[in-house]
């Protein structure tokens, strides 16, 4: 079995199994621990319903924080949008998703994928640079840096494989797939789970604030 056979066979297969198992495990494990209902009368009759607006409203910083958070807001948006383009826009990625789900859609020209990949990597570097330079703000632990590393690795190896840099193409492709497998396997156990938690944490805060009549 070659490295590529291993990567796109057992490695990616098991990483997906670990990811799916882990995500459901963590989601259930946390969501079942909901607080009991607040029996007090809400300040606003529709307060709880309005609270869910924070899921969207907190996608953007409040006016008073806009200036101070401008850098990380721009970089984070740049990273997430560019990564989305890379993940769902490049033909090889679409082919992989098709093999998994059967769904298919038209891909972008490779130049867009390369551009988006470079943007994602650059913004990821910009974000970690801020994190390193402001330790007091972020209070980072090793898990934060590991999550950064497993996110950056597929971008670096993917760009290298596409550009035929470094090792032979099939070896770079195998390393790229293995790095994606590591990302999948780590996904449920680090802060990458914010891809799911952000909805619940924002909603929870919003509902509590709205119940108390806080302007949100």
């Amino acid at each position, binding site marked *: 079995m*070659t490295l*590529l*056979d291993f990567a*796109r*066979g*057992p490695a*990616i*297969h098991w990483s*997906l*199994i*670990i990811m*799916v*198992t*882990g*995500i*459901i*495990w*963590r*989601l*259930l*494990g*946390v*969501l*079942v*621990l909901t607080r009991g209902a607040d029996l007090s009368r809400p300040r606003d009759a529709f307060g709880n319903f309005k609270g869910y607006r924070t899921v969207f409203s907190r996608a953007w910083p409040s006016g008073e924080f806009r200036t101070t958070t401008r850098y990380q807001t721009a970089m984070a948006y740049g990273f997430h949008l560019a990564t989305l383009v890379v993940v769902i826009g490049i*033909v*090889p*990625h679409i*082919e*992989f998703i*098709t*093999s*998994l*789900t059967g769904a298919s859609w038209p*891909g*972008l*020209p*490779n*130049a*867009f994928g390369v551009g988006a990949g470079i943007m994602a990597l650059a913004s990821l570097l910009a974000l970690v640079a801020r994190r390193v330079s402001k330790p007091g703000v972020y209070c980072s632990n090793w898990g934060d840096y590991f999550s950064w590393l497993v996110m950056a690795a597929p971008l670096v190896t993917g760009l290298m494989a596409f550009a*035929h840099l470094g090792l*032979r*193409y*099939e070896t770079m*492709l195998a390393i790229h797939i293995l790095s994606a497998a590591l990302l999948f396997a780590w996904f449920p156990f680090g802060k990458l789970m914010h891809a799911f938690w952000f909805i619940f944490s924002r909603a929870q805060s919003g509902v509590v604030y709205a119940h108390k009549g806080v302007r949100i």
Partner: protein
Amino acid sequence: MTTERTLGGFLRHRGVSRRAFLKFCSAMASMMALPASSVTALAEALEQARRPSVIWLSFQECTGCTEALTRSNAPSIEGLIFDFISLDYHHTLQAASGAAAEAAREEAMHENDGQYLLLVDGSIPSVKAYSTIAGISNLDMLKEGAAGAAAIIAIGTCAAYGGLPKADPNPTGAMSVEEIVKDRPIVNIPGCPPLPLAITGLIAHYLAMGVMPELDRLGRPLAFYGENIHDRCYRRPFYDRGLFAETFDDEGARRGWCLYKLGCKAPETYNACAQIKWNQGTSFPIQSGHGCIGCSEPNFWDKGGIYDSVAMGQFGSGPKIAVAASLGAVAGAGAAVLARGKKHKTETELDSDD
């Protein structure tokens, strides 16, 4: 058997002009990445080369490799070089049969001990009874032939890596030459079939230089297998522009767009098909409208479907992922029950403290 006749004399006798011969030498030097100044030396060395004795053993194969080499629609210098060698034993091509054929093989081996080239096509069944020639198993015949060979050329993916006979579940226990012979220089010329120029080019290199050329990690001459087909494919610009044939009869297929989504294995396949092409440079599989099947790579038959693209995962996704989701649900529910129990216990303890 080895004779004193030179290749130069042989080609002149067959009507090959000096110009055509030098053109072939230039092409060979170019393929082997030799400097232009070496063309003359290569031509002189080739011209003076003596006929080498060659024994060609065919085992579990389909004769496609021999066909590719001998069925050119017009005589080429590559073909003539193949004619030039003293092919002392070849099941398909030789006139003799039965005991006379085996006697010719043994005579050639005896007279040219340690000097003959052993060409092998087809894989070798480890279960001896599955394939025998004149009552001799393929395994024994290979070992006997390899013992006195100067070098071995494994022609075709079957001889080089086991090929189709070795495909899962490998009922004959098929093995490649290099899995059996460990003490002789072996060069692999894989392909199903390989490019004729790769076979004769290797022989020409051996005739001119007296040694085998530089090989890659899979034992293939870098001159012919050093390039990725995808990199050399004339459809590559369509890949870069994101223009793909989705089916074999759609607009993209008619306009010659990239076949990546139809399972073309060119990105992971190393061969000279896109440069040299087949039938005197007429075409190659991708040009004819079908994706590369990666036939010069080991175990190509077992690497997923021919029409599955390179990026596709090789797994049965649905049921196993569904089982994983169920496991996750069970584990999550278990964790939740434990956590709730702990939470209630803590709350009870806090209440009692109050």
